[in-house]
């Protein structure tokens, strides 16, 4: 079974393909997307997406904008920014908007896997907490 489901968003198709293969081999489920709009569509379709790997620089809707939309619609999905720039600024912007972390392209596979796992577990923790809270609420209901 897959470790977690990842939405991979990048306008470089080659990059997405290769990364998908590599991550799939490491037991992740990868859903590719090549633009911000497509990413939002995929999120709508696949509710099980836990982590989003999001390229900052994309034509059309760029990474930061997409991040904002994702966070407002699916606040529990963890987003890791991928940046070609060595720009700390855009990474910082992303973090402020609620991204989990950022990575520079090309990134080390082990590092990526580590970050994704971390993000997934964070999400899991969040969800668990939510479930727990709900359960508490339900159990404490008075007839």
């Amino acid at each position, binding site marked *: 079974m897959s470790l977690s489901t990842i939405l991979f968003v990048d306008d*470089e198709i*080659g*990059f997405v393909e*290769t*990364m998908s*293969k*590599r991550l799939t*081999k490491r037991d992740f489920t990868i859903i590719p997307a090549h633009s911000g709009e497509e990413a939002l569509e995929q999120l709508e379709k696949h509710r099980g997406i836990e982590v989003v790997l999001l390229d900052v*620089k994309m034509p059309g809707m760029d990474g930061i904008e997409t991040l904002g939309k994702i966070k407002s619609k699916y606040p529990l999905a963890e987003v890791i920014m991928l940046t*070609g*720039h*060595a*720009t700390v600024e855009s990474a910082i912007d992303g973090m402020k908007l609620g991204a989990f972390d950022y990575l*520079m*392209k*090309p*990134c080390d*596979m082990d590092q990526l896997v580590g970050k994704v796992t971390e993000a997934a577990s964070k999400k899991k923790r969040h969800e668990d907490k939510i479930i727990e809270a709900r359960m508490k609420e339900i159990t404490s209901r008075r007839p």
Partner: protein
Amino acid sequence: MNKNKRLKNPYYQSLIRKMALIVIIVSFTPLVMASCLILDYFHSSYHEKVYAHLGELVQKHQQNIDGFLTERLSNIRFLANSYDFEELSDESFLQNKLTVLQQDYGTVFEDLGVVNEKGLQVAYAGPFKLEKAEYSKADWFKKAMNSRYFISDVFMGLRGQPHFIVSVKSKWQGEWWILRATINFLEFNSLVENLRIGKTGFAFILNREKEFQTKLLIGSISDKKHYMDHFFEAAKVGNKGIHIVEKKDEFGNMKIYVGAFLKNNEWLLVCQQNTTDAFFDLNRVRKIGAVIFLLGGLGIISTAYLMSRRMVNRIATADKEKEMMNQQVIETGKLATIGELAAGIAHEINNPVAIMVEEAGWIEDLLEEEEFKEGENLNEFKRALKQIHTQGGRCKEITFKLLSFARKTDSRAEDVQVNDLIEEVVALSAQRARYGKVLINENLEKDLPFINISQSEMQQVFLNLINNACDAMEKKGGTIEIKTQLAGDYVEVEIADNGPGIAKANLARIFDPFFTTKPVGKGTGLGLSICYGIINKIGGKIDVRSVLDVGTTFRILLPLKKEKAQHTL
């Protein structure tokens, strides 16, 4: 040297000429006009004055001489009227009368004689033995017989000495007789001789035949004819006043001749003077004026030239500065453009590199699978993939550096750690240095205080200096030593190379804009000039020491932030 070269530009030359010309024209025109006006006025008034003076003098003498002559005549007339022929024919009586006259008038009267109608001197009193002298053929006698009173021209006569005769004709017993007196020539002469003006002025008397009636001074006139004619013509017209003529004599000297007629226009009193003498004062004033004019003119010309030269020099400097500023702006713009371009390229390259690296990673992943484990070249594959990975990493590093460098092209000052800046720049130039066999050593003092400067500008300075050092050592290779240390209120950065050094002649000019020793098209000659500008702007100092074949050291002093002062407050 540089200045002169700049001014040799034909544009500036013509500018200098134009400005100088305008100043000269504007100052000379009124000067010349005023001078001419004054000179002309002074000239004419002085001439008038001299003429008036001479005229007056001559007129006075004319009256004097005329007076003298009429007086003598009246003396004789008195004698002739008072006594008759018989009385005067008595020689002792005549002698007596002569003595009386000589007592009254000195030696003016030389002798007295009574001549009858036939020209025979019947009585004579005087120093010469002229009794019974025969005058019937004498010129003067003929003339004397024609008029009642007569004054002759000067002539030699029987006695062989110059003299002239005053005679009065009377009638006695139906016969005409003449009483004549000889006037001492010397006495008469003294009247005219007294008329001396200045150094060269003297007077003489001429008769109608243009013979001298007075003694002449040595070296006086020879060619009297032409100007005498003028006077006589003037006299014929009936102008009785004073005639003034200016003419050249045969020696080429200008002379003033002042003439006045005497004795019923028979004699001409002429007074002559060299114009140079007459107008001596005027000429002297003219000379002084000319000297002043010349000196003043010289002053004006030289001032005009020097001033316009100086002004044009200023203009040239301003032009140069403007040009330099323009160049700097262009250069800065260029740098910014290059920065943007580099950023774009770096970003574009980054993606393909990332894909390449990931593809290599994918192959690596696949190699892990069972079927490949047995492959004999497995290790070679793995090594090659690792190499791709490493080189990809290098590409990434380079693009990151390019991006980070290009990004910081703003001149905003911020707190900067110099060491970090240097490391960044060194990392950037490391590649190039390696190709040139140049080793860069860093010797940075730790924990230096922050400095408030613009990062990109300082990067530019350091990069320029390191690049220059690399260029200098291109052929042989060498070492660049970068040292930082705290020195009083400054952070001192030393960038030293052991290259060929800078020639002494060039050392003074290396910070000049457009000074370059690199071949045409290789260097703009702006690098160090920009460095100088940047360091100067932030209140720092940059200097250079260089020894030929030993190396060059640039030293930069960067002022610390004035934080201490704020703290104590």
